């Protein structure tokens, strides 16, 4: 059998790989066979039967093995019944008719069946305007129903599957796309069909309802308005929405998104973001985004406490000043200081960071990256390089994930790695406790907290099984995180991982390298540009004269404690953080939705986001603020982001060749998603604004020897608090999304049942936890998957924790009320 077959669809000849379905082959020649239940990412279900077509195959002469000819053409025999294009595989010489009278009749009948029990509430349906059923009805449907309206199907119309997703049972056409998405793609089968026949219903059987971080995607692929998000529900009509391409700012994956906006009365006539939709990028997020990106993606930019004007502290009160005065004061303070310090975070775009770097250079300032995870210097050297795509990893390749609960930290990476494992890639999960990724792993390596570095170093011994696996693998990628680790520990871990990759030759070529599971969208970019974290931020604050803090909240996070003598703080921010509260000069920045820029993802892909809404107040983009300050210091910096990028590409070798033009390039992606047709890919946006571009491999010949030690080890009889990362935490960007409050919840700490017994705490006990001088109330969750001697404390949930430490626990006494 040949690998490619040629067939004819509606008179158009197409050659496709053998094993392809007719419906996909048709797409290749722009023949859009109507479908509801099939989806290119979900495979066939053959439920709706909307894709009925006529299929003919050449009659093979058994004597010769060749097709019988008639007038020089093969004789085609059409099957007696219509076939479903979503289950029929292409074959050589096949003839498909999608528009013949018989095929159209079948398609029309299925549509009529669907419509006889579908409510006519399009005028109030969220899907109205981007609804496959509506579109196909307009194209193929009968004008009038032949059946009794009185006997239409009645069912519940507002059924919460969880607090995020609502089901309208009347509108559901039982295509099962959502069920199959959860089972086949997300791997979290928390919804399913209940009952049979016309009583068949979608139900969620998890607690909380629809407990999946990918749940929002089901609303995109739902071909009717049956599934809607609580976020967008009754929020706007699709045709009122404008669309702007963006990049999700919630983690280091860099999912491509589209922000839908409209001007609306209820927002005082402003243009606001109404929803976040995935935008196709088969190299990054395919057609999906996680619920954090969808439901917390933009709300923080619309908070009431956004900083709208530059302010200075005078007599311990903030006074609004003009930008000019603010720039001048900033410039003076920075110039006068002996060695000013720039503290920046990975929330900033590459352009912001580059201008900051230029300004710091001119001033001789110290540039610091605000993060508690190290190793970015190494990911810059041995990270993924241009031409890498996790979708290419499969049989013969190996992926190792260490010290990271990937689904909580970077859901889309979790998804892509799971898929790679399903394609045959060997997945090794190295973690001190059970995580959701383990279900898909070939090997699970468990170590004690504190042994992270040693564990990886041991693996790098030539006799070790995993070393051999790496040595044999065609490609190898390591994802490392910061579970239980602070700056030093994670740097050391990155070093150990680098050694393993370098020793087995897996670097500086596509689909090989080290990926840091960063917490911010552009941490990788900041490292690439040369920003480095410092171990003790407190010392910096204690001794410096002027600190210029951009996009970071060290005070709110508990990273520094301000003393009586504190530096002059210039704070460039979006929201009124605790750090802003102590600032001397406040510079209001624009949110990523209000400006342009690029982020460098953890996979070292530079991707561009566009302005979606007008700026709030007098806020200005960070790169521009920096350029203005620089101008007051006689340093000319670019103020146009595209030009900043050109400068950046010139100065930073890894960025060589990158420009706005390059990152905006698009090639045809498969599956072909098209908003004008909707039924094939769902309401997902096609990508016309750029697939991004990966950084070059760094020209490195020697690697720094791995230094640093792991975190603290648990000691007999003592409890060790270790930090873990949580998807829905109390960080301002997440907390601003009202919808996620329930999922964020309160601070919950976890320990082993034996440990709880020993300490005399029971599940659900309220504890007061003291750690490094901070304390907070928490709910105790007793969980057998937690190693003994360990107390898991989630980061950004109210109790500052940067690395492992010794907690002090006590029960919160209940107030006795008379």
């Amino acid at each position, binding site marked *: 059998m040949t690998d490619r077959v040629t067939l004819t669809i509606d008179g158009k000849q197409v050659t496709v790989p053998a094993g392809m379905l007719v419906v996909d082959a048709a797409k290749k020649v722009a023949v859009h066979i109507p479908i509801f239940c099939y989806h290119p990412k979900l495979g066939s279900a*053959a439920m*709706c*039967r909307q894709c009925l077509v006529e299929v003919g195959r050449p009659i093979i002469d058994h004597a010769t093995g060749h097709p019988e000819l008639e007038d020089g053409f093969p004789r085609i025999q059409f099957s007696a019944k219509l076939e479903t294009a979503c289950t029929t595989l292409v074959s050589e010489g096949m003839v498909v008719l999608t528009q013949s009278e018989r095929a159209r009749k079948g398609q029309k009948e299925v549509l009529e*069946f669907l419509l006889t029990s579908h409510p006519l509430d399009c005028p109030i349906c969220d899907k109205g305007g981007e609804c496959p059923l509506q579109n196909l009805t307009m194209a193929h449907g009968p004008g009038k129903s032949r059946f009794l309206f009185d006997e239409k199907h009645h069912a519940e119309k507002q059924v919460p599957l969880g607090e995020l997703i609502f089901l309208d049972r009347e509108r559901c056409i039982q295509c099962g796309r959502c069920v199959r998405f959860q089972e086949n793609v997300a791997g979290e089968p928390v919804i399913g*069909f209940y009952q049979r*026949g*016309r009583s068949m219903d979608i139900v969620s059987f998890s607690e909380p309802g629809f407990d999946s971080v990918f749940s929002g995607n089901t609303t995109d692929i739902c071909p009717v308005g049956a599934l809607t998000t609580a976020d967008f529900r009754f929020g706007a009509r699709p045709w009122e929405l404008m669309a702007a391409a963006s990049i999700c700012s919630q983690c280091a994956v860099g999912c491509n998104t589209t922000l839908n906006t409209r001007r609306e009365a209820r927002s005082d006539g402003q243009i606001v973001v109404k929803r976040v939709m995935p935008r196709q990028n088969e190299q990054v997020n395919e057609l999906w985004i996680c619920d954090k990106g969808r439901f917390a993606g933009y709300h923080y930019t619309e908070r009431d406490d956004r900083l709208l004007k530059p302010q200075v502290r005078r007599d311990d009160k903030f006074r609004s000043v003009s930008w000019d005065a603010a720039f001048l004061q900033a410039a003076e303070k920075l110039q006068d200081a002996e060695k000013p310090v720039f503290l920046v975070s990975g929330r900033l775009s590459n352009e912001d960071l580059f201008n900051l770097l230029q300004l710091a250079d001119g001033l001789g300032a110290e540039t610091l990256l605000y993060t508690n995870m190290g190793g970015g210097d190494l990911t810059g050297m041995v990270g993924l390089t241009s031409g890498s795509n996790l979708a290419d990893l499969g049989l013969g390749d190996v992926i190792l994930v260490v010290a990271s609960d990937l689904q909580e930290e970077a859901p889309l990476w979790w998804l892509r790695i799971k898929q790679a494992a399903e394609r045959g890639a060997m997945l090794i999960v190295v973690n001190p406790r059970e995580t959701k990724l383990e279900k898909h792993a070939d090997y699970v390596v468990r170590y004690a907290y504190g042994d992270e570095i040693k564990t990886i170093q041991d693996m790098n011994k030539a006799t070790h099984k995993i070393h051999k696996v790496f040595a044999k693998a065609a490609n190898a990628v390591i994802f490392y995180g910061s579970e239980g680790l602070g700056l030093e520990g994670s740097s050391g871990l990155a070093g150990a991982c680098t050694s393993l990759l370098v020793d087995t030759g897996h670097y500086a070529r596509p689909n090989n390298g080290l990926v840091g599971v960063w917490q911010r969208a552009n941490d990788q970019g900041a490292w690439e540009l040369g920003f480095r974290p410092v171990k003790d931020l407190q010392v910096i604050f204690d001794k410096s004269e002027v600190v210029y803090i951009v996009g970071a909240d060290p005070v709110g996070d508990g990273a520094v404690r301000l003393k009586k003598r504190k530096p002059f703080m210039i704070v460039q921010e979006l929201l009124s953080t605790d750090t802003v509260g102590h600032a001397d000069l406040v510079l209001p920045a624009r949110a990523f939705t209000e400006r342009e820029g690029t982020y460098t993802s953890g996979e070292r892909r530079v991707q561009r986001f566009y302005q979606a809404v007008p700026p709030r107040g007098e806020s200005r983009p960070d790169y521009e603020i920096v350029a203005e300050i620089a101008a007051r210091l006689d340093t000319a910096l670019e103020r146009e982001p595209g030009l900043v990028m050109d400068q950046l590409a010139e100065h930073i070798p890894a960025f060589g060749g990158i420009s706005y033009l390059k990152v905006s390039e698009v090639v045809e992606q498969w599956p072909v998603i098209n908003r004008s047709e909707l039924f094939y890919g769902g309401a997902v946006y096609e990508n016309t604004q750029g697939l991004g571009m990966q950084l070059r491999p760094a020209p490195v010949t020697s690697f720094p020897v791995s230094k640093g030690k792991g975190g603290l080890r648990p000691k007999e009889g003592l409890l060790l608090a270790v930090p873990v990362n949580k998807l829905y935490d109390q960080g301002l960007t997440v907390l601003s999304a009202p919808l996620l409050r329930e999922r964020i919840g309160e601070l919950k700490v976890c320990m082993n049942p034996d440990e709880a017994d020993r300490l005399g705490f029971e599940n659900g006990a309220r504890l007061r936890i003291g750690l490094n001088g901070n304390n907070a109330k928490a709910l105790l969750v007793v969980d057998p998957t937690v190693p003994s001697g360990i107390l898991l404390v989630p980061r950004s949930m109210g109790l500052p924790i940067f690395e492992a430490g010794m907690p002090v626990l006590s029960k919160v006494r209940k107030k006795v009320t008379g």
Partner: protein
Amino acid sequence: MNFSRSMVLVSSDPESVRRGADEIYALFEKEIAARDMEGEISISRLTDTGRPDAAPIVVIYPEAVVYGPVNAENVKEIVEEHLYKGRVAEHLLAPTRELSGRIGWLKTRKGTLPAEKRIVLRRAGRIDPENIEEYIAEDGYQALAKALTGMKATEVIDVLKESGLQGRGGAGFPTGLKWSFVAGTQSEKKYVVCNADESEPGTFKDRVILEGDPLAIIEAMTIAGYAVGADEGFVYVRGEYKLAQNRLENAVKQAREYGLLGKNIMDTAFSFDIHIHSGAGAYICGEETALLESIEGKRGEPRSRPPYPTTEGLWGKPTLVNNVETLANVPPILLNGGQWYRQFGTPSSPGTKVYTILGNVNFTGLIEVPMGITLREVVNIYGQGMKDGATFKLAQTGGSSGSVIPASLQDTPMDFESFRKAGVSLGSGALLICDENTCVVDLALVLQKFFKFESCGKCTPCRVGTGRIHEILTGIVEGRGTLKDMENLDYLVDSLTRISNCGLGQTASVPINDVLKYFRPELEAHIKLGVCPCGVCPMSAPVKEPAAVA
């Protein structure tokens, strides 16, 4: 009802009438009366026989002798010789002809009454079904021994092909061919599945086999495993058949103890084992691909075909799925040979068929008879006539999705080919006999309610269409019908058959299709006149009970 000693049928198709059939009919009446035999012999008309060359035809029961072409002069002789003296008038018999057409069967049965012939039921009721030794004493496991020790796998299949055995689940697919499909696949792992999810209402033939002779199925599956190259089998038993399940479990246990299941059966290299899997009450799981899904632990929903189970069945492996009755035929065929089997039934449908007779007849129950007997014979001979002397109106063959066969087709031989030609289906073997007091619309409504309830909901046409048919019929029996409903019913019937995914949807409309075809006037009476001719349908919406006042 008066029992007649004999029954005379005179053909009454247009060709026969043109050639004087009415005159012959009158002459028979006259001649019978002349000999004072009116009380003993009944006379009625036979519809189209499909043999114009022999028209007019006269058939005399119970001998089922066929005379033709008969002319007026012959009548006296037939009455004299056959009815009075009891001798067949050989020279007046219809000429033998190439066996085609609906009357073909009559030749093979010249002068004989199709007596019951028990092949698959031969042991049921005669042996202790829980004792393997009694089974072995009654020829049990001889067929397996013959196959394992003396035959190649292909030879086993060849015998089946020669026997002409067809699937007894309803579709009538040639069994030998199906076996050869599975045998021809290249796979390390193959399965044999016995479909014992007998859930067609009114069908209980498989239950009787399973309860009365469970080891016959175990043996047959083992033979099948040997023939197709499988080493594992599943019996998917209807959930309600608790006794059958227990007996099968017991049979499997005993067979294992005797070394007739498990590793190295009868000290040969062949190994085979069987699991008993209970259904959970869904009608759809009788559909073979839904059944496979159910065994795999998923929702019982049919797969789309192709691929067929023979290539991608249970867990994606080639799988042979056979009905209980089909399998029960295998050991006797193997023991006695394919030609032996062909002596029963008709050339196109050899063998016997187990029927369950239900409805308004004097005898209801199970019979096993050669293929090709007619409904008239079932009603009058095995059913011992209609209850209370009522008139036979229709029969439904094969459970809820079976055809509704009007009295006019009661002389069609019941074999796969003849039924296919007549545009009706034989189905699984349930024969629901209904008399003149049965309203077809009411019957159709009951059946549609069943389908609406049992549709799995996977595919749109069946999920929605079965409900729509039910709604329309409900409207008609409540006196709300319009002529537009007839049009919609016609459309729905056609649509469901064409575009549904599986057998359930494709055959759910069979009964209503037959009602539209054969009983249209009755349906129209409901709509146009607002009356139910049988007085069964309420013809008004049920009055809602007023809420009780406390």
